[in-house]
């Protein structure tokens, strides 16, 4: 070890206090830099693993593909692998379906079709069935047994006549819970059987495939390839199915990475400021020593190296500690997240995957990144202290007391001196440094206030209330564009709307039901707005007169009353439409194709006003008209949502009765306000826990800064304080003076945090409301969080004054006066 390193090592050992503080700040910085991406990417990986375990692994599927198209698709460059499925026949059972299907080997793999026992059918008289199917058929049989299977061959125009055949069971398929619930099963048959029953020209495959090179693509890019290829091959858009769950989990939105990078930048910034501030302040009393070393012949470079090496020694010890802590905490954190919040099937699988350690949670690149970024953070923080130490001349160093060059020669001063005046003079001695300290201390507080505002605005009950005006909401469960189930289209359901007068009477007679408020819905196409090569699909909500005031209150541009909309030529547009059609404004005309249930009719409306409507009013529709107008346009009541108001103490009973009534209704669904609240609570609970943990660690870094500032302010002035004592400052007065100083930092930190934090929080709230982030609707000042912040800062300040006095008392007054270095 050369002299420079030896000196750095000696300094490192001597400055234990400062280095411990820096060390803690470095540990916390490393911890955050490691834990945030580890949890972020661990979450994604676990999700990916869970989805890949639970769902089929194909990216997309084309339905109704003939033999030639299938062959062409197989050879496309965009396709990595392709598998085929052909539905052969249906086994007739009561209240359910059993399909006999053929899948090739690739499709078996992509569709994750596995057997509980036996092997897949190879010959024309072989079949694989599940226990569920055998149960439905009333047969007790196993592998190797021959069973008589009744079936109807699937023909182009429907199902053929029932026939039956003796087939040998070669394998048993698993029976899932979902299959039992829906009473829908499938059996596997061989290629020979399929070809015998389905002539070449009538075969209509489902072609499942994975897109080549998809690992580097986004979900949208993969879907675009699937759509382009479908257009090339002449596969209609309605026959293109994307495996959404898989794509969503595997191909992450780039915005996620941007988010992670932003959070990491905040951490790095806080780290730099804290470590920099610790070094800068501690440099004040080290400078004299560096001056002596320079007087002994050290060059500027050597002094710089001493400072740098000492800093790096701290980093060298702190970083591994941070990584070790991060390694343990990230696993605990992820497990906790999924134990507490993952109560759906996927969440459970994810929790299992994480606790069984099936995915590599700790990634080498994250370790390397955390180490590299922390080292850079420390290095950047050391630049300024290195400059101070190397630039100062030995003579200047002896006199150095940390004051930046004071140009001030005179001071107005006070006529009478008091403790307050003394404290004030000390704080104003180096205004820049005092301000810098307050600002660095406040940054964490400001961030805390902003996050708290957002979290307190995300009030689960309020958000739920904006989504649901009453306790219960019955709505039609229609589905658009499902070619397999055209009966689920709203245009089909509305012809025999289940929300009819009979039901209204029935519900009205439930004890506790006070009122039913009915809204209609009409599906429309917007002729002036395109979605790919088709017209934009949207809907018009038809609201009853009871909602007139809410509607009028939500108008943000233009002006219209409920009555004025009765004329039917004007319409109210929701603000969200402006995302898709930013040029549309009040006074413009919108041409629409209305899907009335009796076919399509064209109609134009003038946009009378733009409104920022609560979801409970618009139910995600882009436009609004009075209910009567919607119903008149369609020539029938188009009731889609019924909002049911109940007596407070009878909501639960009413809900149960309502559920009983809706039991047999295929197209109706019921949602309760409490369900919505629970859902929102879970969502915000998850977000807020993550945010507060993050803030706590960041706060820890900030506290290190405060500790350092306070201890150093005493350490640097220990001689001065000794003198003050000699000329009559009593210990009580000294404590009081330190408390006053502490109060100044406390008040400054709180003042800045609360004022700028609240203001910034309000701006972020406005932004969040405007952009629908977390469903925020109303502003709630984070009173508890502000009180908490105040309390924490006060307690820390008091604890610090106590700590600092203890350190101070270790030296006698004489020692303080006598030794200036």
């Amino acid at each position, binding site marked *: 070890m050369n002299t420079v390193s030896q000196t750095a090592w000696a300094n490192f050992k001597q400055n234990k206090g400062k280095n411990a503080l820096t060390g803690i700040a470095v540990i916390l910085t490393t911890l955050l830099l490691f834990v945030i991406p580890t949890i972020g990417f661990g979450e994604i990986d676990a999700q990916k693993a869970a989805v890949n375990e639970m769902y089929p692994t194909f990216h997309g599927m084309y339905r109704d593909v003939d033999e030639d198209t299938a062959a062409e698709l197989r050879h496309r460059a965009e396709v990595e692998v392709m598998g085929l499925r052909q539905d052969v026949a249906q086994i007739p059972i009561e209240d359910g379906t059993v399909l006999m299907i053929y899948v090739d080997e690739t499709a078996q793999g992509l569709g994750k079709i596995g057997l509980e026992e036996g092997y897949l059918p190879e010959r024309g008289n072989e079949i694989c069935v599940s226990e569920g199917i055998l149960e439905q058929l009333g047969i007790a049989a196993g592998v190797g047994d021959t069973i008589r299977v009744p079936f109807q061959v699937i023909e182009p125009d429907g199902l053929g006549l029932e026939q039956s055949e003796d087939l040998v069971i070669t394998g048993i398929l698993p029976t899932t819970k979902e299959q039992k619930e829906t009473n829908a099963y499938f059996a596997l048959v061989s290629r020979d059987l399929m070809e015998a029953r389905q002539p070449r020209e009538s075969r209509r495959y489902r072609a499942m495939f994975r897109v080549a090179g998809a690992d580097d693509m986004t979900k949208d890019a993969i879907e675009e390839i699937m759509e382009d290829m479908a257009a090339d091959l002449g596969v209609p858009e309605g026959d293109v199915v994307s495996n959404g769950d898989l794509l969503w989990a595997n191909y992450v939105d780039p915005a996620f990475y941007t988010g992670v990078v932003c959070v990491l930048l905040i951490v790095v910034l806080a780290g730099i400021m804290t470590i920099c501030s610790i070094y800068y302040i501690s440099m004040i009393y080290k400078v004299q020593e560096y001056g002596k070393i320079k007087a002994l012949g050290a060059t500027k470079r050597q002094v710089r190296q001493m400072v740098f090496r000492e800093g790096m020694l701290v980093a060298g010890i702190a970083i591994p500690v941070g990584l070790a802590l991060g390694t343990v905490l990230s696993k605990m954190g992820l497990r906790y997240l999924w134990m507490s919040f993952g109560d759906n099937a996927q969440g459970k699988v994810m929790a299992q995957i994480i606790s069984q350690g099936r995915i590599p949670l700790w990634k080498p690149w994250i370790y390397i990144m955390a180490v590299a970024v922390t080292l850079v953070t420390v290095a950047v923080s050391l630049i300024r202290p290195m400059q101070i130490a190397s630039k100062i001349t030995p003579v200047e160093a002896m006199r150095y*007391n940390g*004051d930046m060059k*004071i140009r*001030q*020669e*005179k*001071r*107005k*001063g*006070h*006529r*009478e*001196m*008091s*403790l307050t*005046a*003394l404290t004030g*003079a*000390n704080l*104003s*001695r180096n205004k820049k440094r005092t301000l810098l300290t307050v600002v660095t201390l406040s940054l964490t507080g400001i961030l805390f206030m902003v996050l708290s505002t957002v979290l307190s605005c995300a009030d689960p009950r309020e958000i739920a209330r904006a989504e649901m005006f009453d306790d219960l909401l019955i709505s039609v469960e229609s589905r658009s564009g499902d070619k397999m189930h055209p009966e689920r289209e709203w245009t089909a359901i509305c012809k025999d709307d289940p929300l009819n007068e009979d039901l209204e009477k029935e519900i009205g007679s439930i004890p506790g039901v006070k009122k039913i408020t009915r809204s209609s819905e009409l599906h429309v196409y917007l002729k002036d707005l395109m979605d790919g090569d088709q017209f934009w699909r949207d809907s018009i909500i038809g609201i009853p007169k009871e909602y007139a005031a809410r509607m009028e209150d939500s108008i943000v541009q233009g002006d219209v009353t409920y009555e004025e909309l009765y004329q039917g030529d004007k319409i109210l547009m929701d603000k969200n439409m402006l995302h898709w059609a930013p040029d549309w404004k009040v006074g413009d005309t919108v041409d629409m194709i209305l899907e009335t249930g009796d076919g399509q009719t064209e109609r134009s409306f003038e946009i009378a006003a733009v409104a920022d409507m609560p979801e409970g009013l618009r139910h995600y529709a882009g436009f609004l008209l009075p209910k009567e107008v919607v119903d008149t346009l369609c020539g029938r009541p188009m009731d889609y949502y019924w909002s049911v108001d109940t007596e407070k103490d009878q909501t639960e009973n009413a809900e149960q009765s309502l559920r009983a009534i809706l039991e047999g209704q295929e197209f109706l669904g019921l949602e309760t306000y409490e369900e919505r609240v629970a859902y929102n609570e879970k969502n915000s609970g998850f977000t807020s826990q993550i945010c507060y943990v993050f803030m706590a660690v960041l706060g820890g870094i900030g506290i290190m800064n405060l500790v350092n500032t306070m201890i150093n302010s005493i350490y640097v002035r220990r*001689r*001065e304080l000794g*003198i*003050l*004592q*000699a*000329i*009559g*400052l*009593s*210990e*009580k*007065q000294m404590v009081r003076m330190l408390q006053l100083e502490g109060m100044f930092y406390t008040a400054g930190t709180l003042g800045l945090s609360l004022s700028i934090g609240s203001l910034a929080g309000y701006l972020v709230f406005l932004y969040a409301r405007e952009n629908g982030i977390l469903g925020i609707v109303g502003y709630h000042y984070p009173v508890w969080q502000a009180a908490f912040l105040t309390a924490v800062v006060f307690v820390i300040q008091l604890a610090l004054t106590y700590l600092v006095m203890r350190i101070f008392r270790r030296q*006698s*007054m*004489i020692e303080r*006066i006598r030794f*200036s270095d």
Partner: protein
Amino acid sequence: MSEWILETVDLCKYYGSGENIVKAIDHTTMHIQRGGFTAIVGRSGSGKSTLLHMLGALDRPDSGKVLIEGKDVFSLKDEQLAVFRRRKIGFIFQDFNLIPSLNVWENIVLPIGLDKKKADRGFILDLADKIGIRDKLSSLPNTLSGGQQQRVAIARALASRPAIILADEPTGSLDSSTELEVISLMKACVNEYGQTLVMITHDETISQMADRALVIADGKVVSR
């Protein structure tokens, strides 16, 4: 009223233990008269600064007593001692020890302020005149020369009109012409205000300017 303003009775202060024991003050008994200028002379390491610290109640002895106007100062609790010190004793240190963030005026009136009393403006201005720093009252200490800074320190020590001024090598950081000026000034002031000046020095010349000199050697005081 006692004839002696300042007395020590069998005062001891040892550092270290066993073979390494240093007897900084060793069973010292001495008396200082009210008024005038007493010099305590000794070589480096003779224990003179330790003695002064105990005379000024800045440090507690291992045994023995320090009596100021007949009162045993170490019988006081810390808090009472601080008050006693600021009322009875003014300190002047070798390194001036002014508070850098306060201007000259504020430095001078600080001990009065700490005692929660109002400064006698006329008296302070008169003092500043006498000491020759009247035009520097709003200057910050770092803009003053060593001699000027020591004058401010003298003014600070005199401002609250304490009975005793304790000076620890007050001219150690000054050149020889300034040294004489400062000593004369201190002498003149204490005479005018009827105070007692006790000065620690290793300089024989200064001790000759004193009304009385005590010699300290190996922790023991020998009257001369």
